[in-house]
């Protein structure tokens, strides 16, 4: 059986202490659903993990009804996200996607922040959050900054977080009425995810899982040429889930169907 390598732990309930500890060799540790297997496979070799689970502030879900946002602590688990009353009311698509992440064990301990920071392309939450125009709060001893999810997730397994930064909060605007998320999942992870928001004027389309990172297009309603251009230009992955032509075909059919495009 594979075993974990020698490993250190830094654990504190004090944000300042945690921030002082985090660097490239001392990595933030949330639910561990991605990090622990990555360490046992030898893909990650940190000297120590810095446990964020004792930071209660990162575990909150707060509603700002005035602004129309839900603030989700980075340590909120998929399971809590899926079942939280306010999240289900204001962000039903996100709650629905969270309810289908991984499996029941992954949802028990895996966190929204960990999911974003690992930046596994074949994932649902990043796509839904990009579609919802969510923002993330990153904090380090040097201060804090707010960035969009698109600015946060910059590639496959790649974020723009500095080595000493941790993700603390994701702020998500209330879901617009006409939003849907559909995914193709034949394997353990999704092959293709597509979130669609239809407003009075726009088609907002976000594609994930088959792309290195979630990719959004905003098109005028009825702009089928623009839609074609967007679909044709997407760089889609070639993996066990299928070749790019397959994914493009499924995506086109799905979008045509979802947007009522007749061809």
């Amino acid at each position, binding site marked *: 059986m*594979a*075993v974990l390598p020698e490993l250190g732990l830094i654990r504190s309930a004090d944000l300042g202490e945690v921030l002082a500890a985090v660097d490239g060799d001392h990595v933030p540790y949330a639910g561990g659903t991605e990090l622990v297997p990555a360490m046992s496979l030898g893909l990650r070799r940190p000297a120590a993990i810095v446990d964020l689970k004792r930071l209660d502030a990162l575990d909150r879900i707060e509603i700002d009804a005035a602004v129309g946002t839900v603030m989700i602590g980075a340590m909120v688990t998929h399971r809590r996200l899926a079942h939280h009353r306010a999240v289900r009311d204001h962000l039903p698509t996100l709650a629905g996607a969270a309810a289908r992440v991984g499996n029941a064990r992954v949802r028990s301990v895996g966190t929204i922040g960990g999911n974003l920071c690992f930046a596994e392309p074949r994932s649902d939450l990043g796509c839904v959050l990009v579609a919802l125009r969510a923002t993330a709060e990153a904090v380090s001893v040097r201060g804090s900054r707010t960035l969009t999810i698109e600015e946060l997730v910059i590639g496959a397994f790649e974020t723009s977080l500095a080595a000493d930064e941790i993700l603390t909060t994701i702020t998500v605007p209330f879901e617009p009425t006409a939003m849907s998320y559909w995914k193709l999942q034949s*394997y*353990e992870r999704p092959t293709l995810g597509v979130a669609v928001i239809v407003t009075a004027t726009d088609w907002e389309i976000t594609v994930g899982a088959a792309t290195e990172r979630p990719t959004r297009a905003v098109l005028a309603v009825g702009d089928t040429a623009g839609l074609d251009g967007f679909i044709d230009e997407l760089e889609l992955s070639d993996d066990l889930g299928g070749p790019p032509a397959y994914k493009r075909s499924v995506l086109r059919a799905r979008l045509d169907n979802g947007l009522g495009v007749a061809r």
Partner: protein
Amino acid sequence: MTGRAAQSTRPPPRRDAWAKVTGRAGYAIDATMANMAHAAVVRAERAHAQITAIDRAQAQCAPGVVGVLTSDDLGDLGRRFGHIIPDHPILALGKVRHYGEPVAVVVAETAHEAADAAELVWVDYEDLPTLTDAAAALASDVCIHEESYLEPGHRFLDVAPTASTGNVAHRDELVWGDVDAALTVAVTVVETSATFPLVYGYAMETYNTLADWQPDGLHVISTAQHPLMIRRDLAQIFSLPLAAVRVEVPYIGGGYGSKSYTKLEPLASVASWAVGRPVKVTTDVEAAMYTTRADSAFVTVRTGFDADARIVARDIDIRFDTGAYADNSPLVLTKSINRSFGPYRVPNLRVRGTAVYTNTTPASSYRGFGAPQGALAAELNMDMAAERLGIDPVELRRRNLVGPGETLIDGKRRLDADLGADLDAVADELDRHRRSPTPGIRRGRAVAITASDAGASPISTAQVRMHADGSVTLLTSSTEMGQGSSTALAKIAARALQVPVETVAVAQSDTRFTPFEWTTGASRTTTIAGLAVQAACTDLWQSLRAKAAESAGVAVDGVTVQDGSIRVGGATLEPGEVIGQWFGADAGEVVGIGVVRRDGITAVLPPFWEIGVVGVEVAVDETTGEVTIEHLVTIGDVGHAIEPELVKGQDLGAATQGLGIALWEEMVYEGQQLTNPNLVEYRVPRLRDMPERITSLLAERSDGIGPYGAKGAGEGALNPVPAAVAAAVGRAVGAWPTELPLTPARVWALLR
């Protein structure tokens, strides 16, 4: 014990159920011994390379390390194993032939220390050309094996291996009639080629072995389906008498053939010998995927039909990708040849098979044993022929099936099954529940059929020990890997001895105590081991009669057995009373021995034909290419179901593995190594994948040679499934598949 029997109100669950639901069932991975050390295996990071140097100095000094072992340290011990072709080094001998091959083993106080130190073993390689594809290996001048390892005249069952040449591990053929002439005059000739993927059995318990070498012998606890085969190999490696090698097999966490024959046992044993302590070797899934897989195959079938759609000839070519070492593949190839042409009347036949060495994980037995590989192309060929001939595919099969009592292969047992009746039953069920059309969904239905010369070698011994209270201990070396052998064999013994089944205890396989059993595989246990158990019970009755006669001072002829009791001189004695009288105390026991060998009803091989008849209805999403199995029909043609629920469990489990091969499972090599050596990327059937409707039929015609007319089950329901799914998908999308698995992307491509 009798008290417990009296309390029982419903049929008792399987006898391993309580241990398994409470976590008390012990598996090899749970085994420990006093002063046990842990091993970590240093595995090759090349697919084909000379080893130029191994530097273990750092590892030897690492904390907790007890020893670091390479093939240089094996002294007088044997260095290779392999029951058909002894081509498999325990530890690499100067060269590695597949990625993940064991090169060195580090033994330390803890598993963590062993793993840490294994990272400090440095191996230098000089790369050789990598041949991960069978066609390329056949065409190449590069030899994966440069030498022949065979002793003259060496044989294993039906297989007489020949010296390997040009990366051919084994060739075999089955020929009768004049195929070329018959194909020339045939009215219609249909040709089909299909690729059966590289698959991994994924027994959820991976390969695990604990070995304890001591000067007086070797004790091994292992995930081994065939402990007696392991014993033989270990005795050879250590030059020990068979009696000095003890192989103990606790519960096995899944076998399916993937744990037949020798795997890690030599490695753990030589490590224990080297350090003088018990050593435990475990594998993770990646290491298991680099230990054994099933043979992948490229099969071409040409079938000629006359004007009445009767088969006049079949010409079949089977090419196996057998991986770096032969293991059991030569025998799998021979069986694949026997099973490939279907249970049809074929007046002219030519099947040629080649097993090819490649630089991939060694292939060996897997549930179905060559049958699914051949059936994929050959049964798909029947569907394609039906389309060409304009005949219903069920009718085409019916017209060509071999009937009960007819010959499939000259010199082998005549068919002990009614395939036409099985086929009709399955087809009727499939038709009865046919779905109506749905926009965006295409549907297809198909049946497929196989017959396998199963049962392996009919060599089996069993012992029943009856105790003074009339209860019984049954000793057999059949291994319990979930198929329910302990439950079924206990029931056979209980019926033969007319005692409550609760009073029959079944021992776990342990070569020091349990008697000889050829193997636990080939769906043979109920039939072959069952016959041995019955014979042991008969022997026990004889012994009881003799003892009753002696105690009563009468001739044996005057003692009879009636309703589970002994009648002697007007008195009726319970068996326990006979034992007590003879020993003169409420003590002692009487032992019955049962033997099965190639004699009497098991003189003609195979002991039975294992039948596989299945039907599937599939739904194909036109947009995504996703395939849903909407209806699965299996029929367990088992002669007599000793435990009907166990038979149905075997059928559904086997069919589910067949669905995995049909739709998802495939080991993918890219360059030298697997791209998917894990369960995230190697996709096996899940709960949600199960068919909405599952119809599990039983056919009990008492036409087997086993107890009460039983025949084996366990593999039959897998064998035709990949072919049936391929045909159903082909019919749904209007294009015949040529390779499995039928992943959504592949089906999407077929749709276009």
